[in-house]
């Protein structure tokens, strides 16, 4: 076993071109669990954790470009969280402080778990990703990138370079159910992002289907009913209809973390509460 520590994205891509089977290591918070469990054996490891470019973020037009190596802790920094509070809220629900210091946004996406905490937020915001290899740079949407349960669209030799997140004007909420008050894998999660300019409410849900997705029918319904002038006065009937539409769009499973019935019920509660919160908040 050998470890190659890349110092730049180009170097990392060159190493991967030569060793397409190398295991890519970022924060290691998912990878090391697999290694310890014996489900992933390590031959050549390519370490991305010391590439300064991957830890940077920039603003371009009305979008923030986040380096794939940005940690969960970084996302909760006020400077960044101001742009997308829901992403910061989601990052805060991940593991312990040590895990949040080590784990990266790029890693959360590459693992592509149905329960990945940042994914419902990024899906709701139509984030896109820049993927890079030694020969090609391409951009894919989040939904194109995550292709199934723990499956992604990375080609051999490719790494995630950055994630592009549009900035939306309006309140955001992320809620996650777990059976412990911290450090817990999501049983259900939901992100609600308001977009005042386009007059649209965006909803991403996690842990209730093979891949996190947008509840489009519910979005259309509520965007139409929402009072974009006062931001208030939603009737209980509308709130209930909205939360039912969200729940109906899910196809949860039974597992040892929760039952399908509970997940369907809980996602409805989260949708209702998220909507109540954004409609109680002031227009920013």
């Amino acid at each position, binding site marked *: 076993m050998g470890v190659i520590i890349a110092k730049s994205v180009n170097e990392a891509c060159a190493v991967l071109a030569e060793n397409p089977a190398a295991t890519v290591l970022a924060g290691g918070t998912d990878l090391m669990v697999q290694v310890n469990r014996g489900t992933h054996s390590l031959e050549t490891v390519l370490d991305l954790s010391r590439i300064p470019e991957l830890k940077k973020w920039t603003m371009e037009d009305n979008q923030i470009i986040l380096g794939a190596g940005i940690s969960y802790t970084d996302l909760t920094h006020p400077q960044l969280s101001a742009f997308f509070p829901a992403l910061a809220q989601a990052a805060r629900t991940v593991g312990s402080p040590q895990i949040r210091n080590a784990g990266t946004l790029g890693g959360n996406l590459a693992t592509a778990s149905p329960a990945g905490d940042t994914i419902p937020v990024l899906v709701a915001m139509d984030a896109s990703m820049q993927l890079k290899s030694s020969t090609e740079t391409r951009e894919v949407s989040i939904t194109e990138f995550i292709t199934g349960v723990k499956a992604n669209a990375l080609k051999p030799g490719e790494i995630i370079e950055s994630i592009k997140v549009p900035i939306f004007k309006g309140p955001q909420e992320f809620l996650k159910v777990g059976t412990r008050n911290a450090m817990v894998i999501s049983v259900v999660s939901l992100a609600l992002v308001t977009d005042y300019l386009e007059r649209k409410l965006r909803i991403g849900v996690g842990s209730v289907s093979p891949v996190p997705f947008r509840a489009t029918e519910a979005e259309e319904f509520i965007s139409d009913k929402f009072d974009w002038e006062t931001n208030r006065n939603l009737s209980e009937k509308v709130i209930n209809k909205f939360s039912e539409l969200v729940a109906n769009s899910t196809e949860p499973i039974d597992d040892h973390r929760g039952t399908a019935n*509970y997940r369907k019920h809980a996602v409805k509660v989260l949708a209702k509460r998220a909507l109540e919160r954004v409609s109680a908040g002031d227009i920013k």
Partner: protein
Amino acid sequence: MSRLQTVDTATKGSRIGESAIRPDGVPKVKGEFVFSNDLRHPDMIWGGTLRSPHPSARIVSINTTPALKMTGVYAVLTSEDLDGMPLYGLEHPDQPVLADGVVRFQGEPVAIVAADHPDNVRLALEAIDVEYELIEPLSDSKLAQENEAIHPDGNLFREININYGNSQEEGEITVEGTYEVGMQDQAPLGTESGMAVPSEDGGIDLFVSTQWLHADRDQVAACLNLPPEKVRLTLAGVGGAFGAREDISLHIHLCLLAMRTGKPIKMSYSRTESFHGHVHRHPAQMWYRHHAKSDGTLIRIEARLLLDGGAYASTSSAVLANATCFAAGPYRVPNVEIYGAVVRTNNPPCGAMRGFGCVQVCFAHEAQMDKLAVELGMDPVELRVKNALEPGDQIITGQTITGTAPVAEVIETCAQHSSSVGPASQQMELPGGAGRTADPKHIVRGEAIAVGFKNLMFSEGFDDFSTASCQLLDGVATITSACAEVGQGFVTLAQQIVREILGVEEVILAPASTASVGSAGSTSASRQTWMSGGAVKSACDAVRIKLLSRIAESHDLDVESLVIVDGGIASLSSEFSISLKEATSDLVEAEEVYRHVPTFPLDENGQGNAHVSFVFSAHRAVVDVDQELGLVKVVELITSQDVGRVLNPLQLQGQLEGGAAQGLGLAVMEEINVVDGRILNPSFTDYLLPTALDMPPVEIAALIEQPEPNAPFGAKGVGEPPAISSTAAIASAVRNATGLDLHRVPIRPTDIVFPERNDND
């Protein structure tokens, strides 16, 4: 705020009653303490265990040849390679060292491997080819007694009937309920690990983390076919125990591999392997009917208890004795009919865990007392105090309480302590915590009290003793005891006792080893402060008498006039004085064996003086519940405990906090999910332990100090009660908040959200 939360900075020389600092505390905090997993030897090789993936199967064949041919592999052993006793067990040997033709639980050891590197161990384990013929597992404990026997010893480990009083009368008020407790894990942070080193005399040295060196030694020696003196066990640094280390795990395997290869060998379980490699708390199903007069006086209790012991006996029979003897709770009950059984299934083996059978029944009897209070229209605290046991009362085994029993005191002080929590002020403090799911308007608050009790020390006629020696030379005392320090703080206490009696400042604790001293008994049953504390005290008393006699003789003084004071010996009747250092330039030593009062077996009606002493505690819990999502946050825990006498306030506080955290875990999150004999969550990803956001501060309302007759220094063991009444109090508080009849712990979100349907069952 209790006095414990403002303890003064401890000093090195602290004596009894002071918060002496742990000798192993600073090294542990700095990461310098050597735990068993840190053991190294320059020539060591590594061991590993092949475990059955199936809960029930016949082994058709095992082919070890491919593994034996692999690089770096020294040995591969199966049951065919055993030439000693093929079975082991704490109370009754019924568990194979290595599976012989049959596997009875998922994770049962089938073969063991020695290789030069952990990776080669893993590869060799993968290369062993085992052909299994699967058998439908017996996974429902209710079916065990009628099912075909899955072991030559049958499917019933033990049954106990307790018949006390003779009235079959119906109460004016009766309440009935069925209750269930899930399988909890001790989850010590240190996994099983150790090292075996073959010695030139044909024997073996085993360094291992355990709770009872001598019981391990005897089982290991029998399985190795060696005389016990050739098997020397030394305690390696223990990373927590809570009952999980009372049974043998890797001990025999390590020794077998060391003997076969002639090399020092180390083994260390992964977290997942640990979940499969030690016993758990018994899941329980319980039915109760309480009868009372309309004024609240209890007149009769009927109960049926069924504990799932899993595949092998471990300590199941003693756990059942506790569950039945303490089934009625710390109340005066004139008439009792209880039937309890613990059965064998193909589920993971269950055995000792903090609270040992009393946790399960406390959850049930306290739920019954709450139901009774509602039915009577009576305050639940008043009902409990009215029926509380007092000294001189009999418990349901007919045993009279001859020691202290401040039951009403623990209940009343706990109930009267003022609550210090207001409504949650931050999102993080609400149920759901970091997940931000709740707003204050979704929250209902509940509060409840529970009381529990338990025996101290081993019961039912067991010859329970502890040995210790004390050597005093040049003013320095050395204590030798085989008491396993598993984190409880015996090392601190031993030093305090020596300083108290001999007046020395420097106290050295020799390594705990079977080679240097007799048994100290198990670090369990809240017994070491009393038993090994008693042994150390006896040895020190003997040394003190020898020393004073010697000084009296050599200086022609009256021994009665001599006292140890200020680091020296002085005469009360003359000017004579001598420093301890000078007085002990010649060695003074003594070894003593300490025994508690004898106990007796239970008769066929479950009657008899089976127990030594009883300890009582109460907890009051305040919980916030998000009823729509079924999420719980315990916001306050208040406790009172019967302690006899406080020997070390800081360590006592640690026991009260840690035990309550374990009780909270069982109440709302900690459960090994077993389906068809398979564990679904053998990792800390999914076996959830309380975090700092789940565990509130523990308020100590009162420590009831009524010195226990016969106990050294009057002190009762304190380790287990905090884990007994805490679970019951929290569950009751959740019932109080939600109005639901929650009859099972851990309480799952679905139990609250869908109370009418058994979504998880």
